[in-house]
């Protein structure tokens, strides 16, 4: 298993984070050893094992289609760093 610096760069880019040189080195080494450990699972024959969709033995949890006003709605919106006319303001998006 060879997890490279390019892999770390790619993941960092997808996550929109910037890494320092040291961080890149560290993460490459750490992630490589983690993946190598997990890779042990590949030694098992899992052909007859269903992929796990959920870790809890629970299914079919529903709510009825009813509108319930949320008491914290306003408070939740006010967490925005910038609001104008009720809108969340974000850096300009050009399409």
């Amino acid at each position, binding site marked *: 298993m060879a997890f490279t610096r390019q892999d770390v760069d790619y993941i960092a880019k997808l996550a929109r984070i910037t890494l320092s040189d040291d961080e890149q080195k560290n993460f490459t080494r750490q992630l490589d050893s983690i993946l190598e450990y997990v890779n042990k699972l590949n030694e098992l024959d899992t052909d007859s094992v269903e992929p796990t969709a*959920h870790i809890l033995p629970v299914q079919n*949890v529903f709510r009825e289609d009813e509108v319930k006003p949320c008491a914290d709605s306003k408070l939740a919106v006010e967490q925005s760093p910038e609001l*104008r006319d009720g809108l969340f303001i*974000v850096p300009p998006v050009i399409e």
Partner: protein
Amino acid sequence: MEFEPVIGLEVHVQLNTKSKLFCSCATVFGAEPNTQVCPVCLGHPGVLPVMNRKALEYAVLCGLALNCSISRFSKFDRKNYFYPDLPKNYQVSQFDKPFCYNGFVTIHVDGKDKRIGVTRAHLEEDAGKLLHSDAGAGSGVDFNRTGIPLLEIVSEPDISSPEEAYAYLTALKSIIGYLDISDCNMEEGSLRCDANVSIRPKGQKEFGVKAEIKNMNSFRGVLKAVSYEIDRQTEVLLCGGKVVQETRLWDADKNMTFSMRSKEEAHDYRYFPEPDLVPVVLTEANIEEIRKYLPELPSARMKRFVMDYGITEYDAEVLTGDKKLADYYEDCTRLFNDYKSISNWIQSELLRELNDRKLPVTASSVCPKKLTDMLRLIQNGTISGKIAKTVFAQMFETGKDADTIIKEKGLVQISDPDELKKIIADVIDSNGSIVDDYKGGKEKSFMFLVGQVMKATKGKANPQVVNQMLKDAIG
């Protein structure tokens, strides 16, 4: 070289549930920005989404109507990407276990039936709305739409012309309208459509390179955008160029598609099972329970209309395209037995008045009883078909019934020979030369004389009676 287009459509239908897919916020269109939101749909940490049961029922119902297989086991997955209209930085969608798969929609084009495969139909949450400010001071986001249930219906690349794409959308909209699970209004965004278009040399098995076309906001727009794209790709290939795989936006003002020219970022959505939502397991009994709500669908109703009412396939298709219109027609058939005449009047006069005012048939001021009462007055000779058009327009305008309008305006047809005798004699006297022309074999002159009688009676004379009396008088 001759090319053939290969088209697949992705249609997003907003389901008309009262509350959102994973929280109890309202889904009303046009509310003040960010007033129908809560910590769940805003993606705050630590919240727990719970699935709306109705959204599941609607998805399964739609799947059954589209002849799909229904998954016994389904789950939700996170589709990860960054965009300001997506508060969680992932969209809850379905990746490998959609609720519905492997169905088809039958379309009628050029008098032929064709099946368009439906690859899958899955549930996902809608994103927010971005509002761009002109000042460049940033964009505004309204999250009211975030979390409203969307059913994404993906077709197989079975569509081979812009007309077929249009017919597929029309058929889909009609079916969904019958199920009453969405408003299907493309202008308001409750139905959205993206098109994958490619072309290949006729007879070749492999697909060509496709472009994904977005930003169409009407069925006509889809028709035009797909046509344009086929022509564009054909020209590229004929000039020795290569079609590039890309997303293109339709510009309805310029009637062209444009490359999005976004930075070429590999889409890597890193789907993984949504740990906050548990899987959905459906039994045969669950599915059969939902199947009970499946109404008679447009194509079946169309065939029944042809059988039961003896109208043409074309007429039946127009009438059954919209469930409410088909209901209106059937209500009429229970009150009056000239089915063909009812069909004609609905398609010409009624639909014209409704379309002029952009009204749905349910808002018609002329109800089935009023329409059929009027048709009966034509049948028994009280008014002529021509006068009836005036009467109908008045009925629609005022909401009054035909009897009242006929009495108020004195529009009763004159069929009594005694009343017509004097008028006919006068017309013959004052048009001696024309009467001679007719006698000399000029058939057209006869119609002129009929016209003169109609004029003298302000159109109220019964044409059949006038014809007969004139013939008797000069023939």
